[in-house]
């Protein structure tokens, strides 16, 4: 039974890559974005991700008094190479302020492995879901807004991952 499933999946994957190669080989985008042929697809912005965004949040050691960890990775579309020194903006409705308020916003940079981690106040449910907002909008790559949702309002950390494509 398992082999049948695997065979089918392999078959679909092989068919998909043949199709993708064909499209990229014939299309102009294949010449402009050779990295995409390798497979790691760029992250799309999530709906509502840009809500209450404030341009140019400062890079901070931590937002407010902390107690909650927002972390994630930033990689390049196609080959998945980690992107160091990328500025990620983070904001949320927390115990210390509403989403739109300046003290709820901050930014951090990715390390050499493309990882980022910023301490912030505890996120609490707003508009029916406990969620955070993250943005990459430095211009070198296409802007991406994310809106991850916590599995439970009691959690004290949240992750979001970016795969960026050239702007």
């Amino acid at each position, binding site marked *: 039974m398992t082999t049948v499933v695997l065979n089918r999946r392999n078959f679909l994957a092989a068919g998909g890559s043949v199709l993708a190669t064909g499209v990229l080989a014939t299309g102009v985008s294949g010449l402009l974005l050779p990295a995409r042929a390798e497979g790691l697809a760029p992250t799309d912005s*999530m*709906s*509502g*991700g*840009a*809500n*209450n965004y404030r341009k140019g949040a400062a890079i901070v050691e931590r937002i407010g008094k902390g107690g909650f960890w927002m972390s994630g990775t930033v990689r390049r579309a196609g080959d998945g190479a980690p992107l160091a020194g990328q500025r990620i903006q983070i904001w949320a*409705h*927390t*115990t210390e302020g*509403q*989403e*739109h308020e300046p003290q709820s916003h901050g930014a951090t940079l990715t390390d050499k492995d493309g990882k980022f981690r910023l301490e912030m106040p505890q996120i*609490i*449910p*707003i*508009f*029916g*879901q*406990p969620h955070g907002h993250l943005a990459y909008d430095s211009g070198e790559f296409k802007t991406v807004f994310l*809106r991850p*949702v916590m599995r439970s*309002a009691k959690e004290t950390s949240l992750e979001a991952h970016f795969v960026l494509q050239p702007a």
Partner: protein
Amino acid sequence: MKGWQSTRATLIWVALALAICVPIAIAAGSELMAWRGPVYILAGFAGIIALGLVLIQPLLIGGYLPGLSAYRGRRAHHWIGGALALAVVIHVVGLWITSPPDMIDALLFASPTPFSPFGVIAMWAIFTVALLAALRRRLGLRLRNWRIIHIPLAIVIVVGSVAHCLLIEGTMETVSKAALCALVLAATIKVIADLWRKRALRSSSA
């Protein structure tokens, strides 16, 4: 016999009051209140009260509330329908003031939250019923035609409101919220089943 009837009447009214007031009281004690502004709190409670009004509506029109004549029940149903539309307006305007982009996303069906479309659809159904009810005489809608319009919209309102409410993670406590939603569904099913039975009786006797 009479004593039992008045006890029963009192029990029904007390049960209704508890079904609506207990969820509101527990929500008022939610720890989330500490981190919300007054407009957001008002908007949230307008939503909870609206759900309570959705429970009263089928009970009134079905004649299940003791001490109210059919005429009074219909009048009250009318007024509470207006109050429901007003509560929904306060809910939406309050949430719009709290976070305009989130409310605009919801109204445009572009929101990431799964409960939003249910709420927006229920809202339009409520506004439609309220408008038609206000214009019913002018439009010359007879009871039969009115029911053909109102009953499907009432089902949309009930199902939409219950789904909207259950999917939200907010100030309402889970068990009291689920109980209120179950009562709303039960009251709606009962009133529609009774209407159905009456119609079947009428057509068989005719």
